[in-house]
């Protein structure tokens, strides 16, 4: 075989290899990259296709800013509360020394609850904490306590955050359980025999080791809540001005009366979820390096 024919056959092999993943890349291009790219480019164009920063500037009008702000607040509150509560639940399941059956039950239930989102979740909370919901009615009946007289409203900020917790907490449990498993018993014992108290062990070893996963997962929960549409839409209709519902209305009926402003709205969302996800991935790699 001559050098040329070897080179040719090797060349042939390489192009064949590429062909094996071609369908995937074509798919990714058509249904991930191009649509997103189209919106991103559109965000910097005017109706005539010329470059402009006007759309980005228009994002800074009060109604849009407040939509972003409420979205960020709801997502942050539900992410942080979900992370804290989920962490304690995962801790109880893994390290709490509870009976064996607790852990698989907790994991199965978390798997279900983290996927029980969207419209049915809104229904469940309406039936429980709505104006005629079971808990609301029971509180009035037995404690003579009217939840709604305290200013609570399921169809508002606090109600939405409370509802989001229903999938945020289980998601935290699902991700933190393996991370807590990664804490070796030997570390706790080594710390203890070196004279450390239980608190010192958590302060100096366990929390620093878990920190990237904790922070990273909180960011993941944030992005998760930020992009959610269905739960909020089914719960509050369009009474709560959050950015996903605004975008939904824009897509359905161009309520902003400006196509390109809609693109900018989407770009803003991608930026926020993208940044928090990138930070999540970065923090995750860091913690994996430690826990190898």
């Amino acid at each position: 075989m001559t050098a040329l024919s070897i080179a040719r056959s090797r060349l042939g092999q390489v192009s064949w290899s590429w062909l094996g993943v071609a369908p995937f890349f074509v798919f990714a291009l058509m249904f991930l990259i191009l649509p997103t790219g189209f919106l991103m480019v559109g965000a910097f164009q005017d109706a005539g296709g010329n470059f402009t920063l006007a759309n980005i500037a228009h994002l800074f009008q009060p109604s849009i800013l407040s939509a972003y702000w409420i979205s960020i607040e709801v997502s942050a509150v539900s992410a942080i509360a979900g992370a804290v509560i989920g962490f304690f639940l995962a801790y109880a399941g893994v390290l709490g020394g509870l009976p064996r059956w607790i852990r698989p039950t907790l994991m199965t239930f978390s798997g279900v609850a983290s996927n029980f989102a969207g419209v049915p979740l809104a229904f469940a909370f309406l039936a429980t904490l709505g104006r005629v919901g079971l808990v609301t009615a029971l509180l009035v009946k037995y404690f003579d306590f009217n939840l709604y007289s305290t200013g609570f409203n399921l169809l508002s900020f606090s109600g939405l955050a409370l509802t989001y917790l229903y999938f945020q907490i289980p998601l935290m449990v699902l991700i933190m359980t393996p991370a807590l498993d990664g804490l070796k018993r030997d570390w706790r014992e080594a710390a203890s025999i070196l004279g450390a108290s239980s608190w010192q062990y958590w302060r100096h070893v366990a929390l620093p080791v878990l920190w990237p996963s904790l922070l990273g997962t909180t960011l993941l929960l944030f992005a998760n809540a930020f992009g959610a549409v269905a739960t909020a839409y089914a719960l509050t209709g369009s009474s709560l001005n959050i950015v996903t519902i605004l975008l939904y209305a824009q897509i359905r009926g161009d309520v902003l009366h400006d196509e390109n402003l809609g693109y900018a709205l989407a770009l803003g969302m991608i930026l926020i979820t993208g940044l928090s996800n990138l930070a999540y991935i970065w923090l995750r790699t860091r913690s994996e390096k430690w826990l190898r």
Partner: protein
Amino acid sequence: MKRSKLGPWLAIVIGAIYFLVPLIGTFEFSLRMRRGEYSFDAYRIVLGDPQFQATFAYSTCLALATILVGALLVVPTAYWIRLRLPGLRPVVEFITLLPLVIPAIVLVFGYLRIYNSSSWLPLTASDRATDLLLTFSYVTLALPYMYRAVDTGLRAIDVRTLTEAAESLGAGWPTILFRVIFPNVRVAVLSGAFLTFAIVIGEFTMASLLDRPAFGPYLQLIGANRAYEPSALAIIAFIVTWACMGLIQVFGRGARMAAETR
């Protein structure tokens, strides 16, 4: 080293209350349709509603199509990456994570703009074409879960040896892929499939914006117009989700047992 178990118990109990009360509340509410007594009227009405049947059937079909397309897309790719192009692995993994980064509503917004009826590929021009687009949208949504499940499954088997063994027996590529690789990652594909089913069956945003008669928009419609039926629907949806997760566990355990007895 005895530690107090009060805290962990407290966490579990509070967690259980928070997660069970809405379910109990919803169930109780769904039974209240008849005045003064509990009944399953709401369920009877919902299940008998032709629209419920139609939308549920539609979403089920879409979910199955999504699973089929997803598996055909993901398994060969993950296999090929493991076997021939390990260098591309980070790129592919990053792409499969993108649907978690880009909100679904943004993706569908993009689809509506570049596949509208006057574009180069008018996927929204006819109902059939839109069904196709919705299927692809769902494949995109399911991509992170599907890819992870399959990749984990492939890690468990020795892809290279299996391939070489099959090649040495004279098998061609289609044979290797469909008779050797697919059966070996069946469990992984199944667990990805059930997760996909759970996600797709009640999906609202994409179906609603693409204007297809799916189960999600139907749920939303009922929610806006009825009192007790939504609770019944929520319970049904919860049972479907639970069934999917339960099936994942059943199949996962079956595979583990098979591996142990082997």
